[in-house]
């Protein structure tokens, strides 16, 4: 499943709350993704990572033109609204509390768009498979309140993957989870990506997470966001703790941290888990 996703000279401006002028959040960002790998978008909190991710997903904030100027291209075609090539997973997993795990994952198939494309039998088969894949095969009938945060995020991930998207956009999906659960979820993502390779764009402010998961790590500066750094990691996944402490990994980490500090002295926060 090949796909190309390209951002061309993306500028995003938001009107200031006091109504006087605009704040530039993203400044001429150009990026191209054409491999089905895991791409990490790293930057301090509030730097505009989520804004960029939403642009890729075609989800637009209300009342603001996105992007202000520039284009998002999917397979070379400009796209400026909702499209079904990408599915998103958010930090707030937005599961419906009144629906069971099964119904939450089946949820998108209740929409006209997917009803037309996927038969009921096929949809049910997919839900079953994806629930097994994310490690919730026997939790069909449970409600979100009966699940832990990690399990709820698995449901949200399953709901995105069940659509077999060519592009998976993840907006700090694991940052609200405990360290141990976060690690489990990262391992799960690696496993799922091997099973169902797609283009993943993963937004995080966690340097360790970026180095654990990424085939490619893009570091953004802040206010406005610009591409500060962009490099590949060739080390195969899953990456061991030994690699994480290797000179190569430590150098990458230092390189990113230096950039982030230079780009935003004293502003924003970066998390490094040891």
């Amino acid at each position, binding site marked *: 499943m090949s796909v190309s996703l390209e951002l061309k000279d993306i500028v995003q401006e938001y009107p200031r709350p006091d109504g006087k002028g605009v704040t530039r959040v993203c400044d001429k960002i150009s990026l191209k993704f054409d491999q089905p790998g895991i791409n990490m978008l790293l930057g301090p909190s509030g730097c505009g990572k989520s804004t960029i991710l939403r642009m890729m*997903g*075609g*989800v637009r904030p209300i009342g603001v033109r996105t992007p202000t100027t520039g284009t998002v291209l999917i397979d070379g075609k400009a796209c400026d609204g*909702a499209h*079904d090539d*990408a*599915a*998103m997973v*958010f930090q*707030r997993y*937005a599961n*419906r*509390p*009144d629906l069971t795990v099964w119904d939450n994952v089946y*949820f*998108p198939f*209740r*929409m*006209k*768009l*997917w009803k037309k494309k996927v038969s009921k039998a096929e949809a049910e088969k997919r839900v079953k498979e994806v629930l097994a894949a994310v490690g919730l095969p026997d939790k069909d009938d449970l*409600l*979100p*309140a009966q699940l832990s945060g990690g399990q709820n995020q698995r449901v*949200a991930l399953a*709901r*995105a993957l069940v*659509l077999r998207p060519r592009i998976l956009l993840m907006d700090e999906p694991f940052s609200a989870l405990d360290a141990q659960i976060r690690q489990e979820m990262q391992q799960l993502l690696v496993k799922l990506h091997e099973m169902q390779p797609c283009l993943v764009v993963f937004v995080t402010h966690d340097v360790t997470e970026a180095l654990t998961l990424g085939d490619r790590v893009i570091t953004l500066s802040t206010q406005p966001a610009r591409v500060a750094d962009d490099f590949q990691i060739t080390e195969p996944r899953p990456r061991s703790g030994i690699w994480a402490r290797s000179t190569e990994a430590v150098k990458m980490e230092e390189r990113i941290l230096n950039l982030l500090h230079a780009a935003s002295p004293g502003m924003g926060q970066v998390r490094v888990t040891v």
Partner: protein
Amino acid sequence: MTDDRSLWNPYTPLSPGQRRGLGFGAVLFLLLLWGAAAALALVGPNKLPAPWKVAEAFVYLAWDAENQRSLLLTATLWSVGRILAAFVLTLAVGIPIGVMMGASPKINAVLSPLIDPFRSAPVVALLPIMVMWFGIGESMKVVFLFIGAVVYLIPMVRDAMQAVPQSHWISARDLGATPWEAVRLAVLPMAMPRIADGVIVATSVMWTYITVAEYVNAREGLGQLIQNARRFSAMDQVFAGIIVIIALALITYQLMQFIKRRLYPWETQQ
């Protein structure tokens, strides 16, 4: 040293027994005070009838052996019937309008200046207009209850919709929902518990307006029963009627709360 069980601690847990005991005690205390005031003739019986007189009046209203009839039952059935009719009308009109206002800022901008002011407007003052428009029959009473309740329900439904976190809407849109599908499948189901709260408030409002609705040309109903008793200076019956309305409103409230908890058990678990 801090005392967790001090009077002034909003977080002190009370056992259900304690809570019921204190509430029951308060009511009992009021009854005793009332009884004492009547027994000692502190207030004239035509102003404040003794509780036992009210009880007697209640028994008489509940079953009039001489005429083989229950005035109270007939009156209650009439009032409940009117409230039920207005209830159906209020839900059928109020919920769709509230949902549309909550889902669309544009519709809200158009309709809210037409609806919101009535929340603080004296709906009672509209009664003469209702009479002019709908006559003095049943439809006037039902429409009056409907107007009184729907102006509360609509803004509450709208607020319930707007209180749903935007993440649900964004997530549904991203999964491919049309805007209306996102409202119907993601936002509305999340708003339901608060919409149910709105329905409960609207019903309580109808119980407070029932006496007013039945002020004009009612031959039956609890409001009429009270008004009739007042005309004959039967204060004991006036009190009995008021107590019955309060009791019915309380029962309705508890019942609706119970139904709401059964329908949306997940609300408190979020």
